[in-house]
């Protein structure tokens, strides 16, 4: 395992990602989650608003979009502007490049997505409540699996954000609600099902067993990272005559 995570790549990626304009979008996420939670606590009538807002909305909109913006930019932005060549013109293994980029994306998503979910849950029910623990655990699964998928998309296509959005809206959002089988291939379901195994709330709308959710999340993460490594190993630059 030693050498898989390259500290130089990790450090430069964190700096670069936080320095881009897109960072404005995901650095606002914690603020939005916590402010809305405070407001809902004051005005909401439904006793399960934390499950509905932080669980359903948080896990189907906030976390996936945060991961989408971060996961597609850690490596994708460098591929787009060509600076990735300075990284690839070194003997660092492509697996190590992909893994380090992935870890950077996971760290940022945890900081700007998962931990705010936990804090917002604490606003709703206090720090000791199982809601916060459950949402944090589920959000960690989401941070890992979504970023593996989105990093892979950014290597495979230059339209990673569009493809990622399609996956979230059409596959997870639309088909996931209509066709039961799709849920087994839905990262949103893995994370919310893991959260539900701790929270036990029907309002979370979870459909998978804990075991299925964890096994599938691991399979999706490893599979997409392997594919990303494979594709990055064949990274090509088209020349002047093309």
């Amino acid at each position: 395992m030693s050498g898989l995570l390259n500290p130089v790549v990790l450090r430069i990626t964190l700096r670069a990602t936080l320095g881009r304009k897109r960072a404005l979008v995901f650095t606002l996420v914690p603020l939005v989650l916590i402010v809305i939670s405070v407001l809902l606590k004051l005005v909401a009538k439904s006793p399960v608003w934390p499950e509905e807002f932080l669980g359903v909305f948080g896990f189907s909109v906030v976390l996936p979009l945060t991961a989408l913006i971060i996961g597609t930019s850690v490596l994708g932005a460098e591929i787009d502007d060509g600076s990735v060549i300075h990284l690839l013109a070194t003997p660092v293994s492509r697996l190590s490049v992909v893994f380090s980029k992935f870890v950077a994306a996971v760290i940022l998503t945890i900081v700007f997505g998962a931990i705010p979910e936990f804090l917002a849950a604490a606003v709703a029910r206090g720090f000791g409540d199982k809601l916060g623990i459950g949402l944090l655990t589920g959000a960690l699964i989401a941070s890992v699996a979504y970023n593996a998928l989105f990093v892979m998309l950014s290597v495979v296509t230059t339209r990673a954000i569009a493809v990622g959005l399609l996956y979230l809206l059409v596959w997870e959002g639309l088909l996931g609600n209509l066709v039961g089988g799709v849920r087994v291939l839905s990262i949103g379901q893995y994370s919310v099902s893991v959260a539900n195994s701790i929270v036990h709330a029907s309002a979370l709308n979870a459909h998978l067993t804990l075991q299925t959710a964890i096994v599938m999340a691991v399979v999706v993460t490893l599979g997409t990272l392997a594919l990303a490594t494979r594709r990055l190993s064949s990274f090509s630059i088209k020349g002047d005559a093309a």
Partner: protein
Amino acid sequence: MSAIELRNVSRWYGNVVAVNDVSMVIGPGVTGLLGPNGAGKTTLLNLMAGFLAPSRGELTVGGRPSWRNPDVFTTLGLVPDRDSVYAFLTGIDFVRSTAKLHRLVDPDAAARRAIGIVDMADAQDRRISTYSKGMRQRIKVAAALVHDPQILLLDEPFNGMDPRQRLEMMDLLEKMGEEGRSILFSSHILEEVERISGTIQVVVGGRLAASGDFRAIRRLMTSRPHVFLVRSSADRALGAALIGRPAVTGVELTPRGLQVRTADFGTFARELAGLCRDSGIRLREVLPSDESLESVFAYLVAQ
């Protein structure tokens, strides 16, 4: 051992052939890869650096294929043509990071050495985003040199440099070539590489059109026929005087002026002014009429 070897390498995209059956051997010293824009120079460099798979043929760098083999970068350095670097880093930070990516024992010393070579020590603590084009080019060279590679590929390294920076870069390449490294750079401007000695490979339309000694190619360039359009106060009289000169091989009267063909550009240029002065003719305009790069390269190809 030859640093880079291409045997019958072709690369195509769909129906477009970017590199067509190129064989070449790049050894120690400086080699220029010359050709007009779109000739396939960048494609060739990308093939060599392993950022493109040959569609056909064999390509080795230091005896190993470079495609899907990042280990070639232990002995290979690449200066890409695109200007994109991690602009938020300082120069020294960028070069030191590259040294760490190469897992050098003392990245700090290696970075300082490389920055010293390109003479960027004064600006090393500034962010790259504040650098001029020439400085960015030099910091990219420093990063490519940080692991002391035996082979260095540079894509259009003189682009955007002012004449002084260009001369310095040429001297730097020369020096590295003399140290026994294999230096390959690409350029689409023949004149900008006139100071470099060594060999050149001329690429036109994806094919290797000519290769050989820089001096021989330069001689060909100065002795090739030039065509000028000359306008004066008395075209016919000037034409009559010009045709008597050995340097002039043809004169034609056209409505736009005199079309003068010369086999010896230098002598013609020197004699024209004196000739006009002696015969009291006022010279209005002298225009080279076939100086496009394509015509220069086409001429070289024909030789």
